[in-house]
Every structure is written in structure tokens, then in C-alpha cells.
């Protein structure tokens, strides 16, 4: 067997090579073969025909066949429910053919926690994203693949920098302190939710964390299952409350060696940006504002200076460039005897639209499966090496000495060139320590991350139906950040060069043992029992060294030889999770389906009084279409599902339950810097997991010969014992204590519908999903975080509170006749007039009201695919409605107060309030409160509908040995419809990386 298999493989490889050379031999020979299913069983009655002829045969009781064929012939091997295989005869006379289950058919297998299940047997709410549903074009991470593909899964891109992070919420946010993102499980390995890359709080090195999933190559993924309700996630217990995303990578299938190659290239350009004052306008408005405040003084700029100013420097243009994305992927899969393999290598490079920002990844994967008789074993390993080049965002400060790249770029005076006549960066006219934005591009800030993770399992059938499985996994990463502020940046000049080297090593290890018992009860009834125990440990440690005073003034980090160490900061932490789990699936006559599952989790994160949590769940489904009484030729499937269960959330940092002492900032005693030790936080021995109770009611249906199919789910999620960092008043000596209090409710409805509108030569398929989620506090337990002190008792978790602006004060007279605002802001003509919502005759912080919520209420995705012959046209809309956002950037860019101090503003300030411009759209000077108090003027509707992808592709079949060649062109973010006035309703933040439009061309080929 071994020998013939090897020979067969070699032969096939040779044949493939010969075909490429167009060498064709003649003459009929006898071909003997055997057909297997992908789980190793012989397929009886499979059809084997010669393509283009009527001759053929079927396999016998052992799956064998025999027929005469020419070596240029192609054999077509097909079997109901399996993918048809085409095999070139070539010189081989012995063939072993493996057919894989056809995932196209409606009743595909889906991955569930600790197992797989037929989709029709699912009792919970599970959304499945298949390879073919995934967005084409460049995708840096699995997050990009999930966007709007399943209802109730809301992905918001939090930064559009290369490899930028995503905020993922499944069925709404239910935690304040804990993470709201789902648990990711890759090939059975739950990933850590901690950031694996070193960050930096320094404003000159701050950049939001990149997506931790960037280390996983999306092109290796075959399916993503999103578990949403309690019955499907309770098996993940204390990590299941925010949903679970199961990622399954490609595995070897067919016997034949298959090579896949794909490549794409993209161009990106700036999507939109604020229109800033040009030099002439800047000088004019500077004078106007200055003279308003200093009427006796001379204007800052003379008439001649203004007349000669012209357009000046367009700083945004200086900052941005045409971005590029380039990726290459090669994969090989096949089998050898009892071994199946899949291996891939991938290269991804993204040069962002902001100068110097970049991400580069090299990755590889090997998946091996072995199966023989009662033994199944497998290995999945993935390695990636990622280089990130970061730009200094600056953190939450308006343009100032420590400002970041984006705010400084907007605000820098258009009167100044980038460099002066000596070639030096120009200096801020008023505050000389504010860095020239282009000088910030000399900051060299890079992160290199290596990540190796994978699982290995060994499964053995103890006796018929009872399988024991040992699964071990490991996720190891090392990330190193080197950041250099050279002398060409003011701060670097001050410290004679400044550097930071940070490193994080993280390692999680998993061991689990499960027993699975499968019993066929006859009469189409089945019992499936799972039990087991798992243990996972997460280790994380790292250090950061800061130094100054470089001996040589290099701008290349690697060349620094000598510097003074300023400080070294180190951390180390460990958490463990010990769990027992079990599940029973009982299917009665393929009509009634019952599921019970439970998990007990013990976690180090919680207080000594509450180490263990128990998470039971149950579900019931009824396949009405299998009932005898149900007899409809229109309805092919009708299934109702109901589930209930408890799930938890433990994703808070370590050491929250203990009172610990940690080093303070420094003092100088005896001429030496010293540190003290002070208590970090009060202890809380009762600290425990958040508990979510979730009900789900669902309906699956398929109509009109499966032309229309879909599902509807309604759910109600109540999270109690919410983990909070309860903010303490200043008198407490601590900022906050971590405790469990209050409850949060999420309820909603989800629809998914696929309609094959047209079939035949011209195909048109529409897939749409829609979700509504209502999120609110059920019990605040006195928790009113910063900015929400006057929050509504039952308001949304992401509520935005602020003053209602009635308009701008038009005169002193109007101010005198309006409620006194002095407790909030000094009123002046041209400033905001606030509503006295509690009608007590004064404007106080009590007058703040709920103005909206940050998280969307409605989300949807609509995907349309048109197919005509080999053409494919796909357009994918994404929508997110019923949400608002505080537009800090606009608030700052329309506040002219500090314009004379040398800070440029948006062009909209030309329409600011003055006594001669009463119907202004922008407040006037003397806006003392600044734009930064949350108020309705700047809290904007950030709903949007976006054409996320538009793709046209053409597929060539069977050319010169290439069985499938697809070429495509794709546009991302072609247009966005939104009332939001900022740059982008999704990614806009106070300091934000500008969003881009992406144009791609690509090809994929299968050999």
C-alpha cells in the first residue's frame, strides 16, 4: 500500500509536469482505482466517467473500479453529497481517489465547540462564514473577513492604519471593564485576549494597538463559525458571554497534489480630509481674532504679508502618499498514504497612505492529519513574522508641545514651508517646542512580532462509538519594539536623542482531554455525549527600557552604541483556567433535537472567595419539515430552535482582586532619584466573573427548492454582576476599585436571508443580513462613570451625554435674558446657548442629557453576486445605523480661540459667528468652554451605509493544466453615505489615521 501510494503520487506529479509542457501521449490503457470518502471509508456506487464521453462505470462494494482510458482523458468521479473530482489519467494505471464532502450542499458540517455538527442539527445560534463568502481583495486579518457577513456581529474598524485594530461586538456590549470582544479559537486553541505587542504611553510614540489577529493569515482560513447564543457558547463557560469565533484552517483533502497560488496588488488614496484654511485665510482670520481680543494692539500680519501669502503649504498633502498593498500566497495540499497535508506560505505588505507607516508579514502554515483504523491524529502549526512601522499618533491632546502627527499636521501654519532656507524644519511661530509635523516622520518606531502557534491532537476509538482525545496547544509570541526619537525632532534634540526598547513575551499553553461517545439508536435517533477537562495557562512578561543621550547621533536604531539608561520597567503576569466540560446532543427521529451542555471554570483572576463558576445551558429544536403531517412543496426546511443558558466573562486584567504595592514615580533624596512603593488598589476577595443569562428563539427555513433560505433569531441577554472599575472620588486615594455590580441587558433580533434570484446562465444571488440590538443598563448600581454622572438609569452602555445646544447667543441682551450659564461656561455672543433641560433657571451639569449612543442600533450587510458565464460581479454594502459620535476633531478645528497662537483651523471658520454674521455655522471667538465639552453641536449622527467592496472577476477553466484561474478587480470603500461631518464615520477619532479607498487587482490559480 505504502509503495503504490507513493508511486501514485509521484506519477501524478510527473503527469502534472508533463501536462504543463503540453506533452500528450496516445493509446488506451486499463485504469484500476479505488474511491474513498474523506473520512477514509470506501464509497460504494460512485460514478466514474470519462469526460466528454458516455463511457464509464460505478464502484463496487469495496469502492474499486476499473475501466479503459487514454492518458489524455479526464476521469470524472462523482458521488452524491461529495465534491466531484476531475483527474487527468496520464501515465498512471492505479488511482486512489478521495472525495470530499460537499460543503455547498445546505446540510454541511459546521464546527462547534469541541466538535462538529451537521448544520441541520444545530440547536443554537451559529453563523457560519465560508471561504467563498469572504471578502475578496487584500485582507490583513480574519477581522476583515467577518465584516457584516453575519447578523448580530458588529465589527468596527478602530483605526485605518495598516493592520489597524477592530472593535468586535456580538449581540451588543455587556461589559464595562471586561473585554467585549469574542473569544477566538483557532483549530481548537483559544487565543489570549491580551495585547501581544508592546505599547507606549509616550505621546511621541503612541499609536493605537494593531489587530492582535494580524498574525493569522486569512487566506489559510476555510471557515469561520460565530457562536452567538448561550447553548453554543456555554461550553466555553467563563469566556463565552461575548460570543465565540471558531476559526478553522484549510486541511489536506484530495490525494492529488494541488497547488494554489494567489497574488494581489492594491493602490490606496486618501478618502477624505478636513479642508483647512490656506495661508492667506489663515493670516486674515488670525488678525481678526487677535484684534477682537487685543483691540489696541497692531495686527499680527501686515496687509502686505496677507496679500503675498497665497495658498501656502498644504500640510495634509505633505503627510500623505499613494499607499500600496501587495500580497502573495502559495499553498499545497494533498495526501500521502494515511497522511493528509496542507502547507502554505504568505507574504503581505502594506505601505499606508501616511508616509512611513507600514506593515509587512511573512507567514507559513503546516496542517497534517493522520488517520488509520481507530487512530486519528493531527497537527496544525502556524508561524508569522510581522513588521510594523508606526507613526506617532499623539494621545488625546490638542496640538501642543506633545501633540501627535495628525493634529499637528492639520494645525501647523500654512504660512510656513516644511523646511527653511537652511534645510532645517521650520519652527512654530509662537510655541517653539511644538514639533514640526514633518519632523515627526523622522521618528523611527518599529515593532517586530514573531508568533508560533498550533495544536496537536491524538484521538483513539476505545470501542465502537467511544473516542478519547488528547489535545495540546501552544501559542507563543515575542514582540519587540524599538523607537527612536532622533535629534531632528525637538524632543530628541532636548534629550540628545531618546529611545525606547520594549519587549513582550507571551505564551499560552493548553492541555485538554475529552471523551466522545456516539450512539446510533436506530429509527434515525442518535446520542452524542462529550465530557472532558481542559487546562490553559497564560503567561506574559516584558520590559521596557528608556534611554537618552546618544553618543553618536545616528537616526538608525540598530546603530546606537552608547546611551544613558533612564529607566527600566518590567512586568510579569500569569493566569490559569482549569475547566470541566460536558455536552449531550440527543436527536430523536431526526425531528426533535436536544442539547445540554455545561462547563465549570476555575480562574486565578478572581478573589479567593469566588474561584469557580458554573455555566449550564440547554436547547431544543424541532425539525417541523420532517414531520409526517408537514407536507408542503414550497417549504423545504422549517426548524424552530429555543435555547437558554448561563455564560460568563472573565476578561479583565490580572491582579484585580488583590491589593498590591507597586513603584511610584520618582523623588530625589540625597541627590539620587528614588522610587517609593504605594498601594495600587483596594482588594476585593469577592471578585467574580460576570454572569450572562441568555434566551434565544430561532427559526430556520428554506423555500422554493432552496431558492430562498435563511433564519430569524430573537434573543435576550441579561448580564449581572457586571465587572466595573468603580470610579472612586479623589478622597479615596485610589482611582477605582474593581467590583461586581449592576446588570446590563441586550436584546435584539437578527435576520439572515439568501435568495437565488436568478439561476441558469445568468445567476443572481442576494445575501442579506440585518440585526437590531437594544443595549441598556438594567441596574446601574450607582455606577455613573466619567461624563455619565447624570446618565439615565436605563440608558445605553455606550450613551453619550452632554449639553443640548439651542444655538449661538446673538447678543448680550439675549444672554441677559437666558438662564445663567456661568456654572458651565462664560457666555458671550457667538458662543453656545445651552438648554435648561431641568428648567431650574440655570445651566448646570444637571442639564446634560442623553444625546445618543456610540454603538449602532441597526447593522446590516447586503451582498449581491451576478454570474454570467465566467464573469462574476459582486457588490457588498455594509450599514450601521442609529449611532452617534463626539466629533472632537471638528470641535477643535472650529474653535478659533487659539488660532492667533499659531494653530490652523478648518475652512468652515470663515463662516464663524461675528456680529455681522449672525446665522453662522461655527461659533465665534471667545468660545471659552472650548469645543471639548460634550454638547449636541458636536455630537453627530455617525450612521453610514458603505459600499465596502465592489468586485469584478473572470475565471478561466482548464488552460494549460491550470484547473482554475481567476482574475479580479476590487474597490474597497468606493463610497459612503453618511450625515457625519468628520472624515469617516467609522474610524474617526480625535487623533486618527485617515481612511483610504483601496483599488486592487489580483489573480488566483489552482494547479
Amino acid at each position: 500500500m505504502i509503495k503504490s501510494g507513493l508511486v501514485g503520487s509521484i506519477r501524478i506529479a510527473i503527469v502534472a509536469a508533463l501536462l504543463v509542457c503540453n506533452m500528450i501521449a496516445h493509446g488506451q490503457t486499463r485504469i484500476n482505482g479505488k474511491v474513498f470518502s474523506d473520512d477514509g471509508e470506501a464509497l460504494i456506487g460512485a460514478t466514474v466517467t470519462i469526460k466528454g464521453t458516455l463511457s464509464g462505470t460505478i464502484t463496487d462494494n469495496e469502492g474499486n473500479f476499473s475501466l479503459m482510458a487514454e492518458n489524455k482523458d479526464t476521469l470524472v468521479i462523482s458521488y452524491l453529497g461529495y465534491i466531484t473530482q476531475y483527474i487527468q489519467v496520464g501515465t498512471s494505471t492505479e488511482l486512489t481517489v478521495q472525495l470530499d464532502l460537499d460543503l455547498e450542499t445546505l446540510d454541511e458540517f459546521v464546527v462547534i465547540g469541541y466538535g462538529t455538527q451537521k448544520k441541520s442539527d444545530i440547536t443554537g445560534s451559529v453563523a457560519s462564514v465560508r471561504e467563498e463568502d469572504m471578502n475578496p481583495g487584500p485582507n490583513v486579518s480574519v477581522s476583515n473577513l467577518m465584516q457584516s457577513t453575519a447578523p448580530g456581529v458588529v465589527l468596527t474598524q478602530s483605526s485605518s492604519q495598516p493592520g489597524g485594530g477592530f472593535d468586535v461586538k456580538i449581540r451588543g456590549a455587556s461589559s464595562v471593564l471586561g473585554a467585549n470582544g469574542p473569544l477566538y479559537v483557532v483549530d481548537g486553541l483559544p487565543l489570549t485576549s491580551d495585547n501581544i505587542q508592546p505599547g507606549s504611553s509616550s505621546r511621541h510614540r503612541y499609536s493605537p494597538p494593531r489587530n492582535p489577529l494580524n498574525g493569522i493569515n486569512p487566506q489559510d482560513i476555510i471557515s469561520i463559525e460565530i457562536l452567538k447564543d448561550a447553548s453554543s457558547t456555554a461550553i466555553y463557560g467563563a469566556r463565552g458571554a461575548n460570543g465565540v469565533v471558531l476559526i478553522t484552517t484549510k486541511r489536506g483533502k484530495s490525494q492529488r497534489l494541488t497547488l494554489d497560488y494567489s497574488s494581489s496588488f492594491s493602490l490606496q488614496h486618501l478618502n477624505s480630509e478636513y479642508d483647512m484654511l490656506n495661508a492667506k485665510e489663515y493670516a486674515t482670520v488670525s488678525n481678526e481674532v487677535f484684534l477682537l481680543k487685543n483691540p489696541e494692539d497692531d495686527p499680527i500680519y501686515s496687509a502686505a504679508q496677507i496679500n503675498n501669502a497665497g495658498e501656502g503649504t498644504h500640510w495634509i498633502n505633505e503627510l500623505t502618499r499613494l499607499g500600496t498593498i501587495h500580497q502573495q500566497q502559495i499553498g499545497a495540499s494533498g495526501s500521502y498514504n494515511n497522511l493528509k497535508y496542507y502547507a502554505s506560505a504568505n507574504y503581505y505588505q502594506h505601505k499606508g497612505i501616511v508616509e512611513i507607516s507600514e506593515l509587512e508579514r511573512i507567514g507559513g502554515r503546516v496542517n497534517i492529519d493522520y488517520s488509520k483504523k481507530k487512530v486519528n491524529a493531527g497537527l496544525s502549526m502556524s508561524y508569522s513574522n510581522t513588521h510594523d512601522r508606526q507613526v506617532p499618533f499623539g494621545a488625546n491632546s490638542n496640538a501642543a508641545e506633545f501633540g501627535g502627527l495628525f493634529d499637528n499636521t492639520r494645525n501647523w501654519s500654512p504660512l510656513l514651508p516644511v523646511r527653511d532656507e537652511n534645510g532645517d524644519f521650520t519652527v512654530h511661530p509662537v510655541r517653539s517646542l511644538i514639533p514640526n509635523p514633518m519632523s515627526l516622520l523622522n521618528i523611527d518606531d518599529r515593532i517586530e512580532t514573531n508568533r508560533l502557534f498550533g495544536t496537536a491532537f491524538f484521538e483513539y476509538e476505545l470501542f465502537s462509538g467511544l473516542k478519547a482525545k488528547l489535545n495540546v496547544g501552544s501559542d507563543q509570541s515575542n514582540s519587540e519594539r524599538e523607537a527612536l526619537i532622533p535629534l531632528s525632532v525637538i524632543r530628541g534634540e532636548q534629550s540628545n536623542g531618546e529611545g525606547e526598547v520594549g519587549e513582550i513575551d507571551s505564551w499560552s499553553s493548553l492541555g485538554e482531554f475529552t471523551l466522545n461517545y456516539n450512539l446510533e439508536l436506530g429509527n434515525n435517533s442518535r446520542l452524542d455525549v462529550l465530557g472532558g477537562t481542559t487546562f490553559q495557562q497564560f503567561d506574559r512578561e516584558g520590559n521596557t527600557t528608556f534611554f537618552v543621550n546618544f553618543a553618536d547621533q545616528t537616526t538608525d536604531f540598530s546603530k546606537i552604541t552608547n546611551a544613558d539608561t533612564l529607566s527600566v520597567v518590567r512586568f510579569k503576569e500569569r493566569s490559569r483556567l482549569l475547566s470541566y466540560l460536558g455536552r449531550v446532543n440527543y436527536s430523536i427521529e431526526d425531528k426533535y433535537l436536544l442539547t445540554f451542555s455545561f462547563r465549570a471554570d476555575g480562574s486565578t483572576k478572581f478573589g479567593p472567595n469566588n474561584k469557580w463558576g458554573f455555566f449550564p445551558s440547554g436547547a431544543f429544536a424541532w425539525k417541523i419539515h420532517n414531520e409526517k403531517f408537514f407536507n408542503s412543496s414550497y417549504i423545504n426546511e422549517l426548524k424552530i430552535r429555543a435555547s437558554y443558558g448561563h455564560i460568563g466573562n472573565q476578561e479583565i486584567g490580572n491582579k484585580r482582586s488583590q491589593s498590591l504595592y507597586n513603584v511610584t514615580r520618582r523623588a530625589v533624596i540625597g541627590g539620587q532619584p528614588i522610587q517609593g512603593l504605594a498601594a495600587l488598589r483596594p482588594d476585593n476577595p469577592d471578585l467574580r466573573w460576570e454572569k450572562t443569562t441568555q434566551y434565544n428563539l430561532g427559526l430556520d427555513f428554506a423555500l422554493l427548492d432552496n431558492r430562498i433560505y435563511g433564519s430569524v433569531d430573537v434573543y435576550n441577554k441579561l448580564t449581572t454582576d457586571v465587572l466595573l472599575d468603580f470610579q472612586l472620588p479623589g478622597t479615596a486615594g485610589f482611582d477605582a476599585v474593581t467590583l461586581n455590580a449592576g446588570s446590563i441587558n441586550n436584546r435584539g433580533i437578527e435576520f439572515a436571508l439568501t435568495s437565488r434570484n436568478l439561476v441558469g446562465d445568468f445567476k443572481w444571488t442576494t445575501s442579506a443580513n440585518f440585526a437590531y440590538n437594544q443595549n441598556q443598563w438594567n441596574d446601574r448600581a450607582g455606577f455613573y462613570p466619567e461624563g455619565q454622572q447624570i446618565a439615565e438609569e436605563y440608558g445605553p452602555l455606550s450613551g453619550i451625554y452632554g449639553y443640548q445646544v439651542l444655538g449661538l447667543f446673538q447678543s448680550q441682551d439675549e444672554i441677559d435674558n437666558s438662564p445663567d450659564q456661568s456654572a458651565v461656561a462664560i457666555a458671550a455672543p457667538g458662543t453656545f446657548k445651552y438648554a435648561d433641560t431641568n428648567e431650574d433657571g440655570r445651566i448646570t451639569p444637571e442639564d446634560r442629557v442623553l444625546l445618543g449612543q456610540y454603538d449602532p442600533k441597526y447593522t446590516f450587510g447586503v451582498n449581491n453576486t451576478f454570474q454570467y458565464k465566467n464573469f462574476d460581479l459582486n457588490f457588498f454594502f455594509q450599514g450601521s445605523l442609529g449611532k452617534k459620535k463626539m466629533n472632537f476633531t471638528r470641535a477643535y478645528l472650529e474653535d478659533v480661540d487659539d488660532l492667533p497662537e499659531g494653530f490652523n483651523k478648518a475652512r468652515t471658520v470663515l463662516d464663524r459667528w461675528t456680529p455681522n454674521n449672525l446665522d453662522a455655522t461655527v461659533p465665534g471667538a471667545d468660545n471659552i468652554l472650548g469645543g471639548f465639552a460634550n454638547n449636541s453641536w458636536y455630537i453627530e449622527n455617525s450612521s453610514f451605509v458603505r459600499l465596502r467592496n465592489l468586485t469584478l472577476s473572470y475565471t478561466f477553466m482548464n488552460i494549460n493544466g491550470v484547473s482554475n484561474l481567476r482574475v479580479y478587480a476590487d474597490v474597497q470603500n468606493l463610497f459612503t453615505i453618511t450625515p457625519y461631518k468628520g472624515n469617516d464615520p467609522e474610524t474617526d477619532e480625535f487623533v486618527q489615521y485617515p481612511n483610504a479607498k483601496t483599488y486592487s487587482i489580483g489573480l488566483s490559480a489552482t494547479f
Partner: protein
Amino acid sequence: MKNTNRNLNLFFVPVLLSLILFITSCEKVLEEDVFVDIASNNFFQNDKDAITAVNAIYAKMRADGTVTGQSGQQEGWGMFAYGEATIFNYQQVQTDELFVQWANFNVFSNFTLTPSSYGNFGSLFGDLFEGIFIANNVLANVEGNEKLSEETRNRVRGEALFGRALFYNAAYSLYGNIPKITKPESDPLNLPEQVPPAEIAQLIIDDFTEAANLLPESYPPSDYGRFTKGTALGQLARFQLNQKNWSQAIEAAREVIALNYSLSPEYGEIFGLDNGNNPEIILTLPSIAQPGIGNTLVAHTSQSDYIIGSWGGHLARNSFYDSFDQDDIRRSFLIKDYTTAGGDSKTVSNGAMIIKYEPDPNRVGPWGGNDIVLHRLGEVYLTLAEALNEEIGPNMESIDLINTLRDRAFNNDPTKRIQLSDFANKEALRDYILLERSWETYAENYRRDDLLRHGKYIQKANERGIANAQQFHVLYPIPQFEIDRNPNLDQNQGYD
């Protein structure tokens, strides 16, 4: 084949059993490991722990934000240093001595601060109470702690008591109505209430007094910078003066003067580069020319083309500059006319740079190495002179004390001395002392308290044209977010 099966069964069953046994027998795996940090039950075990804990008070004096928060905290811009939420801004910017050119300081200069408009300035309230918490925590853990030597226990208690009183003194002066917290408890469900200000005043007096009894008169050089007996008596004298407890102020001031302090021969040396051992300094924040632990007053006040890299925000008012006798050496540290780094002659028109601290040629960015002077003997002289005048009216001892300082300021020019006969009554000498105080101690964090004591804080603001400065402005508002977090707190009258 069957044999293999049996063998594998033989292998698997024990593995399964031992795995389950291993995991269940290890309940210990759920105990949380602590690395890097120190668990609270493992601290205050020896003298070194206690000293490390009390060091946090010194660190808190110059750090803003939470001491232990890894983010959001800025080192070196806090309470007793120079930055935004600092005593310096709260005590100086609303006075006749100086102003700030930056728009965000207008809330101070124009008396338009509201509970909600503090912005970055608002963290001072919480910073002070965090300092108080740290002190209370040290006090609770050293009291009766037999693991510590008696000497350390007493000294650390003295340092903590002093720290608590120092922070309370500031909070009492700025906000007036505050809670009295003497234990390290922070129960979120039992939030503190304000107490009558007199209770706080008594606590401050008691703490300074006990600290003076516990603290040594001096330390070996390796502990230079720690609070001493003189530090505590000096603050006590000044607090009693502000309380108008004249006889107690006299008593404490005399005790300070009796200690081993002496006037610096040169005024400028008090603020010189190596002012670390200046015999006049009583309370100091020692500094090193390094980010976070340096002195940034020069950078705050110097024009950017005078000392390169400075911000030129804080300036002495022209009216204050003009109030000096032009021969007064002390005025020479206020600079109007200067030569730029590029060699041009320039004049600051709207004020004068306060270059009291000698610019450090080895500074790192804004960070110079001059120790920050928080209290010195010269001020104690004025305190004694003022208290004596209040107690007995114009007297020779007060005149002599003032003339000692004037001799230094005018190179011992006898014509610049004041005479007892110049002052017809107590009010005349009182007014003069207020003037002399500004010349001698400008920008040293005293001015607001001095003006308040003399009842001229609001009057001076009105005279500057700040029409909306009203009597209730003698206290700052409690930041709105503090009231939001603790509904037991009432806003100061006039701001509510």
C-alpha cells in the same frame, strides 16, 4: 491488531485517570501568582519597606495623576513642581505678582473658573487626597508595627504626619470645605462628607506639631531632602500665621530661627545651580536635570529665544515689576530686556521673565537641576515680623528682621533700611510687610495665602480690572467630577 488495541487501551486509561487526578488535586493552580508587585500582606515587614513606603509621599509631591496608574500620569508636572495642576498655579496666577500668557490659564487670571471648566487643572484635588491616602496608609501600617525599629517607626511616622499636614494645608487653603480622612479606607459605598474647616485646621496643627517632635533636626547627606524638625516647625509657623494665631506663629517661628539655619549671604544663591546645601532652605523638592525630576520654572517663564526651548508662559506683571526699588537686587531676577540666543536685543513688553532659578546650562529639555525651594528662613523672618506687628504693633524686632533681608537685597546700603518711625501704626507696617513679602518671596507659592490673610485678594483683582472677582472666589470650586463621584460633597458657596 487486537493486541495493539489492548495496548493502546492500557496506555490511555491510566493517562486519562492520572490527568483527571492531577488537575483536580491541584486546587492550588487557582491561586494567583504575584510577580513584580508586592502583595499587601507581604509589605511593611522591615525598616526598608517602611522607608520605601514613605518615599511615595515625596514622589507624590511632584507627580500628578494617580501615583500608580501606569498611564495618564505625568511625572514632574505635579503638585509642588511646575505644570498645570500645581500649587504654584493655584497660589500665584490669580495674584498681583504674575500672569500666564496662554489662553487656557484665563480661567485663573480672569476669575472665571467654574466647577466644570477645570480641564487639566482639576486633578489637584484628587492628587492632594491621594497624597493624604498614602500618608494615612503609612501611618496605619507603622503604628505599633513591632517589625520596625523604634527609630524608623518614629521617623517614618513623623514624615507621614508632615506629608499629611502638608497636603491638607493646601487642600484647606484652596477648597476650604473638605472631608477629614485619617485612615486608609476607601469604601465606595461609604463616601466621606465635609467637616467644618476648623476641624481640618486643628488636624493640620496637631500633625505638624507631632511631626516636629518626631523628626530629626538633620539627616546624613544620603537622606538630604527629607522632612526635618525645622521643616515641620516652619510649616506650622506659616499655617498659624495664616490662621491669625499670632502668638503661636511667633512661638513656632522663633523655634525655627533657633535651629541651625542661616540666611544665604547672596539672594541669588538660594536659587542657584548648587542650592542643594544652602543654609536658608527649610523645605525643598530636590531636583536633578533629568526628565520628570528636574525644575521647569525657567522653561515656563523664559521666552523661547532667550533660553532656547522655553515656553514663555508665566510672566511677572509689569505693575509688580514697577513696584520695586530699581536698586533692589531681587528685581534683577525679573528680566524685561534681554539678548536673544541669536544676539539680538529684545524687550518683553507685557511683563517680565521670572529667572529666579539660575538657568542650568546642563538642563535636559525644560528640566534644570536647581532644587525647588518651598520654604526658607527669609520667609520665616517675615512671618515673625508680621506676627509680632499683629500682636504688639510696630516694633524694633520686626523692623530689624525686615532690614536683615533688605540689607541683603541692597548690598547693605543703609539708606535702603526702613525705620520704626516710618510706621505710624500697625496697619501701616502690615501693608508694608505685604509689599516686602512680594519683593522677597515672589513666585514662591505664598502670594494667594498672603493676600487672603491681608484681605486683599479680591480687592487686588478688582483693581486689575477683573470686575467679576467676588468674595466667594477666596475659595476654589470643588471640581464637578469630584462631586459627581461623591454626591456627599457640597459645592463651595457661590459656585453651586
